[in-house]
């Protein structure tokens, strides 16, 4: 019995030492994640996340002070990629984003309320709003990232965010309801 205990102890100590040594010897310097995260983010510095641009957000995600789901324009896609970079435990956060961010969001200007003040298009990070002073502005859907910046500055509350209008080009079949007994 004593022999068995001694054997196990020696084995344990031996392997422990080897492992410890290996961990130090083959230590890999983790690359700076901030840069990696920044390449995933949209890079439009829209400020919707509440951080100072995409770089600020990347730092926050890297040190764990921001969730991977903090980027609304990036949606689920970006969140999944971020979760992969910062670690698997972040995957739990994704459940909430399942369907909510499937639809892309774009800004829409109510032309009746627009006074042509040009504040919004000065603020737009992607130049998605066109118009000139004293003229009604309009949004280019394909360029808009739905970042909310224009909504905040509009003095007449003429801008809202809505899901991107469906067209024949971007329409696709809805996901079939797979639950049993559902109407097919």
């Amino acid at each position: 019995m004593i022999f068995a205990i001694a054997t196990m102890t020696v084995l344990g100590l031996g392997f422990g030492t080897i492992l410890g040594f290996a961990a130090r010897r083959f230590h890999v310097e983790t690359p700076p994640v901030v840069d990696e995260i920044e390449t995933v983010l949209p890079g439009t510095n829209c400020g919707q996340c509440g951080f100072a641009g995409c770089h600020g957000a990347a730092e926050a995600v890297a040190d764990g002070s921001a969730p991977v789901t903090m980027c609304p324009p990036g949606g689920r896609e970006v969140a999944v990629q971020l979760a992969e970079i910062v670690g698997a435990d972040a995957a739990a956060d994704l459940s909430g984003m399942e369907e909510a961010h499937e639809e892309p969001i774009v800004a829409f200007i109510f032309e009746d309320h627009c006074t042509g003040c040009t504040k919004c298009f000065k603020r737009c990070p992607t130049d998605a709003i066109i118009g000139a002073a004293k003229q009604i502005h309009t949004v280019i859907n394909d360029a808009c990232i739905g970042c909310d910046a224009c909504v905040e500055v509009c003095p007449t509350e003429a801008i809202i965010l809505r899901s991107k209008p469906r067209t024949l080009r971007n329409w696709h079949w809805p996901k079939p309801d797979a639950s049993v007994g559902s109407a097919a």
Partner: protein
Amino acid sequence: MTGGAIVSGPHAHSKFSVAQTMVSVMVCLSPATALGFYQFGWPAILLFAVTVASALIAEAICLLLARRPVSIYLFDGSAILTGWLLAMTLPPWAPWWVGTVGAFIAIGLGKHVYGGLGQNMFNPAMVARAMLLVALPVQMTTWVLPPPFGEPGAPEFWEALTITFGGSGDIDAVSGATTLGFVAAGLDGGRHLTDIMAETFPLRSLAFGHVPGSLGETSALLLFLGGCLLIAMRVIRWQTPFALLLSAGGLSAALHLLDPMSYPSPLWHLASGGLMLCAFFIATDYVTSPVSGLGQLIYGAGTGLLIVIIRTWGAFPEGAAFAVLLMNACTPVIDTYTRPRIFGRDRKGRPLELPKGARQ
């Protein structure tokens, strides 16, 4: 027009449903079952009824617990078929609680713990049979060969009630071993096969079912015909039964040629025990067998080999249940490696090369 959501094509359907599949299997099983009823009389009918009813009750309870729509699932036929197949593998004069416990094991542990219809990894009826065989060795190996239904000496309905529900009855009078059990015991005792064979039932009895055994072990011929009908109806494919019978026959033939004194003939192997039932009705279970034709060939061959191996060298005289369960475990692997070739791609999934001859 539909009033509901717009749905994608195809708008036509073959109109063949899960329930129809299950009913077809039952129809093809019924001749052999009927013969079994005739053979073993009222006790067998009662046990069958109890087992099927228990399977339905177990299914209903599990569905309620899982909060699934009971009305849709309960009559899809899968629970009835599971109960039916289980009853086919029980000793016909076993007490009622054997059938009930088996049905609850099959439906509860064999099927619903995995998530219900289509999700189970192992054949539920075989899970139940294997567990019963291990847990209740006495009840599961007490076989009878009474006079057939309606003839003098066969148990009346009231006698049958006491046999099935009231404990033992006078089973001892007619009990005996199955041919497989008898041969295995004889070989273990060091006797020659020819001597044993002389004492057991001839091949004709095996084919027509006049032997002790479970309901499904009786008539190899009726089971074979029912299975062929099932293939003709395109409910099952020919691959699994074909490969199973071929491999079981082939291995036993090879052994028999090597040493006719120790190894029985392939025809005897094919006709005895649950091999036919297994080949056409149990190994072909959709849920637990591979989906592609090639996969089914591999799976059938594996099952056939295992059955003969277990019968010949294993601890149990009949190995169908264990063989099926073992091969069930291999199904995901077989499926992974027997994918069909995609049109326009080679087996590895790369696009085909443009043929040289095409450019003239």
